[in-house]
Structure formats: C-alpha cells, structure tokens
C-alpha cells in the first residue's frame, strides 16, 4: 500500500522527523479555510499516490486567500496520471501546507533491496528533481549504503554517505540523523520504501521533509491498526472494493476482456496472451489455489459488474484446484447472475474431464469451450470485439 503524502508526513512526525505544518481538506471551501489557518504563502498539494504531481499541475503555491481558493478549485477533483502512465487518480483530498523558505534541496531514501536482502539508504545533494534521471546521468551524485541486517542503522552508520554526497557541512549531522530515523520508520512500520524528495534545508538551517513517499508491506498490516484503517478506506474503484470485500485478488485494468485464472503467475500470463492475441484485458483476477464454487460466483459477480467488459475468459489449470469445482461454480453463477456477455472457458489439469462434462450437461447459452490457453485467448478476443 502506498501512503498519500500527508499520511507519510504524519508517520514521519510521529518518529521525530521534521515536516512542515498543514491540514488536509476534501473540498474547495475546506481548503480555503485551511489556508487561512495555515497562513500565506502556502502550498495546495493534490493527494494522489504517484510522483510528478507538480508537473501535472497538482501542486500550486498560494500567496493569498484568493489564490488559495483559485488553486483549490483547479486541483480538487482533477484527474492526474503518473509519469509512467499510472492512474488516472482523481484528487479527493488536498494537503494545505505552510510555505517553506528553501535554501537547498537534497534527496534521501531507505528502501528494501530485494537482491541484496538488506535495507539500502541513499542520499544525494541533487534533490527536488527526478532521482532516476540523476542516477542515470550522474550516478556518483547518488550515494548508497546498505544497512547491516543484524543491527540498527544509526546516524553514525549513515554519516559516511552524507559526507560522500557533499552536503553542506553544517547540516550533515542532522541529515545523517534523519536517515537513521527513516530506517527506524521502515523497521517500526513495515515500510519497504521511504523516499523524501526533496529533503530541504531551510533558510534557518533546519532539515525538513518536504515530501513523503511511503510504501507499507500489506502482509504486515495486521500489526498496524492505524495503517490498516488507511488501507481499508483507500480503495476508490467500485470493482476493487467489491472484490476486496469478497476476499478476491483483483486489479482493475482499462480493457474489455474480463479475465479469471487460478494462481498469480498463470493470471499474469493469461493477460499477456490475451494482449498478444490483440485484446485488452479488463482486469487481473486470481481465483487462488483450491478455488471453490462460491468463489467463482463471487469472481463472476465482480468481473460482470464492470460495464466495459464484453467477454470473459476463464483460464484454469487445476492443480490443487479441481476443475469439476470450477465447472460447478460456473453453472451456479450462470443460474444466479444475469450475465449478458459470452464466457470462454479453458479447463485443464485435475478433474478436467469431469469439469468439461458438467459444463456440457448444463448446456449454458453463450459459453464457449477451448482446449488450450492460446485458442481460448484468440476466441475471447474475437468475441469481445473492440473496446
């Protein structure tokens, strides 16, 4: 789960990292009132979980009340896409933040390095811009240090990279302390990524986190009640919300071919072969190992509720999952739901013959069987038509 900027900053503040004051607002009126209390100049910042908000027009500075209202009107409700095509995300909330007097912009992060199996701390004097571009063009400007997995990452451990990054000498101790606190946040809150860009030095020589990008490990939410509450209210898409309620692993996509497969890998592979056949997948839905008939009813309910879907592909390779259970689920779902779109079914693996017999006996209208994954992909794309 990605936290919004203000949620990340609240987490930072709780761990003693300096952040600018501010208030969250959901409407233009709330934002204007918040700006009055925060004071001017202030920043009106769109709260969506992507980078590049400034370039997309989602961050604006207001010098007075009139500008604050004008900017809030422009930002609240706008749709923002990320630099890599993520989203679009509708701006439901803005963060109204006290203006900062910026002397320098640095970069600081603590991430989980999957390859090395260690936390990795990074710092750079080149903050406030796209850090991936900095890493590509001037790799020496981004200084990295792995944390020893057996002991806490202290300010003393962070000091060498702060020195190597060539930051202003008077703030090095404070930046090293901030890096140590970021590592503490990662460990205490189960964050697999914490990025501060920019980490600023103010005219008064204070070190302040001006942005916060925090990714929390969903597997650890059970031990973080407040973060779990944020996660629960963060699902904006109606299909994704419905799927979560039913305990299904579902990701909404842009196309018109509804997809259900068992297992995450096979499901991703199914999306790929549908795309290779010229189709556009509408979703990712992993029915899981050992899928039972009622899970199939739930899955079809979720996929079918997406108005864009014009055909649905079932791609099942039964291992622990039994194909006769899946077939029973399809027949049950067809009885319960009024599905107007064609279903293409490919059943292989455990009990596939019994499954195919169940489907044949039910004589469902609009159901097409295919023997292989590739034939099934071609058939569903043909039936779905253009999106």
């Amino acid at each position, binding site marked *: 789960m990605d936290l919004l900027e203000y949620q990340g900053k609240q987490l930072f503040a709780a761990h003693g990292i300096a952040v600018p004051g501010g208030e969250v607002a959901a409407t233009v009126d709330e934002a204007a009132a918040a700006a009055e209390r925060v004071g001017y100049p202030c920043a009106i910042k769109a709260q969506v*979980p992507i980078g590049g908000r400034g370039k997309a027009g989602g961050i604006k500075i207001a010098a007075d009340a009139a500008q604050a209202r004008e900017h809030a009107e422009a930002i609240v409700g706008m749709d923002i896409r990320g630099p*890599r095509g993520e989203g679009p995300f509708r701006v439901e909330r803005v963060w109204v933040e006290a203006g900062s007097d910026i002397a320098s912009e640095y970069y600081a992060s603590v991430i*989980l390095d999957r*390859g090395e*199996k260690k936390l990795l701390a990074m710092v750079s004097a080149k903050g406030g811009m796209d850090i991936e571009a900095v890493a590509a063009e001037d790799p020496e400007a981004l200084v990295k240090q792995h944390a020893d997995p057996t002991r806490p990452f202290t300010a003393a451990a962070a000091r060498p990279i702060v020195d190597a990054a060539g930051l202003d000498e008077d703030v090095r101790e404070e930046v090293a302390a901030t890096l140590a606190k970021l590592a503490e946040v990662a460990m205490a809150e189960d964050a697999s990524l914490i990025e501060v860009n920019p980490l600023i030095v103010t005219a008064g020589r204070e070190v302040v986190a001006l942005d916060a990008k925090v990714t929390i490990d969903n597997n650890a939410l059970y031990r973080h009640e407040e973060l779990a509450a944020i996660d629960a209210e963060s699902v904006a898409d109606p299909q994704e919300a419905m799927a979560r309620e039913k305990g299904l692993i579902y990701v909404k996509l842009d196309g018109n071919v509804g997809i259900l497969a068992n297992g995450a*890998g096979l499901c991703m592979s199914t999306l790929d072969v549908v795309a290779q056949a010229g189709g556009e997948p509408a979703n990712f839905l992993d029915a899981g190992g050992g899928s039972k008939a009622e899970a199939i009813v739930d899955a079809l309910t979720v996929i079918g509720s997406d108005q864009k879907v014009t055909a649905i592909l079932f791609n099942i*390779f039964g291992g622990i999952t039994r194909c006769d259970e899946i077939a029973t689920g399809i027949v049950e779902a067809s009885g319960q739901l009024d599905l107007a779109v064609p279903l293409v079914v490919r059943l*292989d693996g*455990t009990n596939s013959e019994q499954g195919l017999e169940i489907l044949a006996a039910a004589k469902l209208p609009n159901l097409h069987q295919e023997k292989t994954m590739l034939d099934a992909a071609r058939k569903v794309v043909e039936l779905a038509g253009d999106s």
Partner: protein
Amino acid sequence: MSIVVDNDTKLVVSGLTGREGSFHGLRNRSYGTYLAAGVTPGKGGQEVEGVPVFDSIREAVEREAANTSMIFVPARFAAPAIDEAIESGVHTVIAITEGIPVLDMLRTYWKAKEAGVRLIGPNCPGVLSPGKANVGIIPAQFFDPGKIGVVSKSGTLTYQIGNELKQAGEGNSSIVGIGGDPIVGSDFIDVLKLFEADPETELIVMVGEIGGDAEERAAEFIAAEISKPVVAYIAGFTAPPGKQMGHAGAIISGSSGTAQAKKEALEAKSVRVGESPTETAAIAVEALRASNRGSA
C-alpha cells in the same frame, strides 16, 4: 540425482495436525516421500496416520533423523517456525506459507544463511523430484521423470509448462518453486547452481515474473557460470506500474522490474525467452533434442 529433495529426504511437517498440513503432508507421503514426523507444540506423543508428532522440530531431528522441514504454519507465526527449523539441525527448510511480512523474512533469510541451511520459499509450491520425492503442494501427476530442471516464481504457471513438456514426451529432474515474495530464501541463482551441478539435468527452464531484479541477476550468472542451455519465460508484460499483481513481489516500481527489461536482459545473454508457456515448452523440447543430437 535431482536437487533439493530426493530418496534421502526425511521430512518433518510443521503443522501436520492442521487441515492443510495433514492433507499435503500425507499426499507427499503417498507419492513416496519419506514422512518422518510431524510437529505441533503441545501435541507431542500423538500420531497422524501412523506418523509420530513431536512438540519441536529438534525432537523430530533427534528421534526420527528428519533432515528436511516443511512449514505450513499460518503467516503470523511462520517466521518464528522457520527460525525454529533453521536451528533444529535439518539441512533444508521448505516454507509454503504465504503472506509473511517481508521484514520478518529479511531477518529469517540471514539466520538461514549464517546457519548454512537451505531455505526454499516462502509463498512457494515446494519442490518435486519426479519419481523420488515431493515436498509441498505441486500436483505430481503433471510431471514425469526426465532431464529438464524447472525453477519458477509461480505455481500454476509451472504446472502449465510441466504439463506441456509431459505431453511433448519430456520429463523433469526437479521442479523448484522459489516463490513470488520480495525476499525468498533461494533465488534463481541458488537453484541454477544446483541444476548446473546435477548430472541428471540437461536443460533448465526458468519461469520469472515482474518485480525485483532476480531475473536480471540470473541472466548475468547464466552467462558467467552455466554451461547447460537455459530457456526462460516471463509473465506480466501487460501489468501496469505500481499495481501489485497477486504475488507480494509482483509489482513494477520505479523504472525497473518490467517484463520487457527482464526479457531483454536474458536475451542479451543468449537465453531464449518464450512468448507464452506453450512456446516456452516447445523451445525447451527443441533445444533439449538439439543438444542431445549434438552430443550423440
């Protein structure tokens, strides 16, 4: 030969008295795996279908000479259970449990490394050496004994490819599911090393997916250290950045972790990458037969 599990495997199952643990543990036994013991704290002295149950893995090691541990414990309790297995004296730990917090695995990973214990998983289907032993939840009926080693982040995708190999008349030395989590005990490289050293394995199929850089690292390693042909498949070309696709590790973050980048890294090192599971199996069969003709 084969790798990780074989006729010398003496299995102890943590959670054998639970529903899933008993179902899969006994299924593994009926395949021919030697099921030495089960472990459930507080239930020592009981039996499950003739298999003795102990309070700790160490007891199972001492009393029944267990050497391989399988973990079926629920996610919240799984990391301590893996730690217990690491300290018990077994040489291999296979963790099936999904949903373990990644920082817990970070600590456990280094524990296993320091102890010199081979850890497979978590969130994996286990390891099958056809005709010898099956530890985990891989449905063995889709795999015959043979010359192709398979290492994979995904379960069902592996069954799909294994079944296509079987239909083409080829079998497997071992199938190793390494799991799709961000931190796993054994990466592609660890398993590639084992297949390289295994005389029964003549070709390796590697099944990857989006997220992390394990495939890119494997590409470098294959070029430097692997003499056997490797064929790869990568899932997730259509996955959008920032969205987690089922597995906790399957997420494209920053500019890395895309399927395209992985495919290019592998192809740059002369590893053939199939477009679909079907094509991957076909390439593997063709490459195996070509190399057999070459050596004949």
